[in-house]
């Protein structure tokens, strides 16, 4: 059976949805992600939907479910890369998309996850993500 691959990136999981999903595939993704969050002790999930040309209420609900289930498992979720036409359509459709955090791209999504999971600190400037360490702050001018 086809599955959408789930990659591990540090303490986060990354999922890139690139196919027009039929319902079974979406449900399998939900199951796989929750299993992987536990198995890999992940604290964050990044779902890249930049290739999705359509999000209907079923997929919207799937994303909400994933975010809510992940939260129960102590993981934050960020959905990234929503296409403008998809966003406009979702607003018109009236899909509430509650509890879903979004970011414009993977880089910003990762920064958001790091901020939410509060383990490390990062700064984002000029499109460059830099990790800031305790030692750097002492005596330096930022």
């Amino acid at each position, binding site marked *: 059976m086809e599955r959408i691959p789930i990659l591990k990136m540090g303490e986060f999981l990354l999922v890139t949805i690139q196919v*027009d*999903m*039929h*319902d*079974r595939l979406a449900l399998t993704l939900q199951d796989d992600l929750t299993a992987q969050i536990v198995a890999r002790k992940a604290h964050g999930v990044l779902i890249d939907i930049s290739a999705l*040309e*359509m*999000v*209907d*209420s*079923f997929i919207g609900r799937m994303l909400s479910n994933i975010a809510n289930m992940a939260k129960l498992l102590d993981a934050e979720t960020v959905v990234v890369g929503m296409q*403008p*036409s*998809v966003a*406009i*359509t979702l607003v*018109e*459709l*009236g*899909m509430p998309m509650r509890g879903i955090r979004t970011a414009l791209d993977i880089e910003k999504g990762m920064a958001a996850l790091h901020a939410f999971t509060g383990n490390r600190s990062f700064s984002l400037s000029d499109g460059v993500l830099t990790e800031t360490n305790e030692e750097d702050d002492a005596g330096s001018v930022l």
Partner: protein
Amino acid sequence: MQVASSETYEIRGSDDIVVVRQAVRQRAVALGFNLVDQTKIVTAASELARNTLQHGGGGKAAIEVVKNSVTSGLKLTFTDEGPGIPDIALAMKDGYTSKTGMGLGLGGAKRLSNEFEIESQPGQGTRVAILRWKGL
């Protein structure tokens, strides 16, 4: 309004929902709909196809290219011989979920289209038609 072409798809399983929305996407692209309008009609088609399957027990989707004096458009008609909808006004309200979970389908599809029609009687199945004109 003239009908320039017509094709029909069976909706028997959830894979058919994908088939229908890909067919709608192809037609919308061929007609020259802009990206937002394409996405709107494909999404509406997905909602209605799913309703046909889950509430209607399966049925058909007809995709027609239509023309009026000003422009062309796509008309989609979803029919099933399921239980029908006893209270259409209630079913069109957002947040309403029947036993079979129609949710946003009808109200959403209407908002995403230029024209919307529905006929349904308990015991007589359901027919929902939506239309989007190019450039509107």
